[in-house]
């Protein structure tokens, strides 16, 4: 049965919530903590799988013969890797950067792949919907409320569009920054948080502010990534929602053009935000390494 959408039955808010809200796919609880495999966890794993699938063969090839001309794709990846190493790591930390390269690279590609695959719609859902509309696929007669397996396979959600994920990543960045501080300056790092040349009385005020600053930096990282990865999706959904809201064919080209434009922007933002996250992390690490 083809569902008929009317402007009364359509609620853009519901659609947005449906697309942006995390949802458990497989329920799991260990020690009282809800560790369900949610849509975002699934997408994160798919992204991680892609990362391994992309980079391990490249590493194999390159370690077999580093002087061989790389293929077009691995050449492109090498450009990214070199960019992160030189223009992000080395540019901010100098020669200390090489210890942080693997972390920065993983962080960059982890965020990037999450941002990028989040742009691909939920394929299982799309397939099932089209299948049902054309009558080619019969809806599985599963238990009520059960999510079809195909939908679970590619939930099509941006994992970096959730504060839990961005906060976790920012937390890892925070840890790395603090570890870098102590590793390079020893226990004096606690004292050296305050910039050099601050007179005594000011120091008493400055120190708590600087300590607080250590937490605001990763907080800003988390919020920036979250907001950027959510806003674009929301705008696309709103543009598409116009079609159903106004029930008019004249809105269709406008909506499609506008959401395509935003989609292109999102593609750019996916790269930009991954870069900004890693670049700022590298800068903060460099800041913790030396006293100012």
């Amino acid at each position, binding site marked *: 049965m083809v569902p008929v959408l009317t402007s009364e039955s359509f609620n853009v*808010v*519901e659609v947005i919530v449906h697309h942006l809200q995390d949802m458990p796919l497989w329920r799991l609880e260990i020690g009282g903590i809800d*560790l*369900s495999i949610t849509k975002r966890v699934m997408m994160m794993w798919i992204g991680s799988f892609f990362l391994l699938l992309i980079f391990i063969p490249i590493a194999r090839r390159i370690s077999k013969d*580093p002087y061989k001309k790389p293929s077009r794709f691995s050449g492109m990846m090498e450009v990214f890797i070199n960019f992160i190493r030189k223009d992000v790591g080395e540019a901010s930390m100098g020669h200390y950067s090489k210890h942080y390269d693997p972390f920065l690279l*993983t962080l960059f590609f982890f965020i990037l792949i999450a941002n990028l695959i989040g742009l691909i719609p939920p394929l299982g859902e799309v397939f099932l919907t089209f299948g049902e509309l054309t009558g080619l696929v019969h809806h599985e007669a599963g238990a009520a409320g059960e999510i079809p397996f195909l939908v679970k396979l590619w939930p099509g959600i941006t994992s970096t569009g959730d*504060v*839990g994920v961005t906060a976790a990543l920012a937390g890892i960045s925070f840890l790395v920054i603090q570890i870098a501080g102590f590793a390079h300056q020893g226990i004096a790092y606690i004292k050296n948080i305050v910039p050099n040349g601050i007179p005594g009385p000011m120091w008493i005020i400055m120190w708590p502010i600087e300590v607080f600053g250590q937490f605001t930096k990763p907080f800003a990282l988390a919020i920036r990534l979250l907001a950027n990865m959510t806003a674009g999706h929301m705008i696309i959904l709103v543009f598409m929602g116009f079609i159903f809201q106004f029930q008019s064919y004249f809105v269709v080209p406008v909506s499609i053009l506008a959401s395509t434009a935003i989609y292109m922007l999102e593609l750019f933002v996916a790269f930009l935000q991954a870069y900004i996250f890693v670049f700022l992390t590298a800068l903060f690490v460099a800041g913790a390494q030396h006293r100012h």
Partner: protein
Amino acid sequence: MPLLSGGSLNLLHVNPGLVIWTVVTFVVVLTVLWRFAWKPIIKGLDARNLRVEEDLQSSRDLREEAEKLLAEYENRLESAKAEAIELIDEGKKDAEANRARILTEAQEEVGKIKERTEKDIERAKLKALDELEKTTVNLAVELLSKIMKKDVSSSEHKEIIVKELEALKKSKV
């Protein structure tokens, strides 16, 4: 802070399970990629960069060497040219000198021959004059004796005529 009323999307709600999964996933990915991807890739890229740098350096060195060689050969060529020009100049000078020498020698020779010839001519002239003188005297004596029909001692007449001739010569000179 519910962002959208009517829905249940709360952007700032932190799901602890998701945080844990993110950290676990990230750490696993980091470890695996560190060991199996970044290490060999970084090693390979560094090796390639090093090779490229070395190649560049060696090509620069080779170029420098080639330039040096070229300069040296050019120098040599230049000096050879100069030498050749010098040789030619020298030859020219020698030839010139030879010519001048031969010319002067020839001129000297010519001068000598001319002188000798002139002397010969002079001598011949003198001789001829002498002979002419003698013949003239003899003829005069013969003529005179024939005219006077008188045999004058030829030595006496001769003396007179010679004297006269001497006087004539002197007046001529």
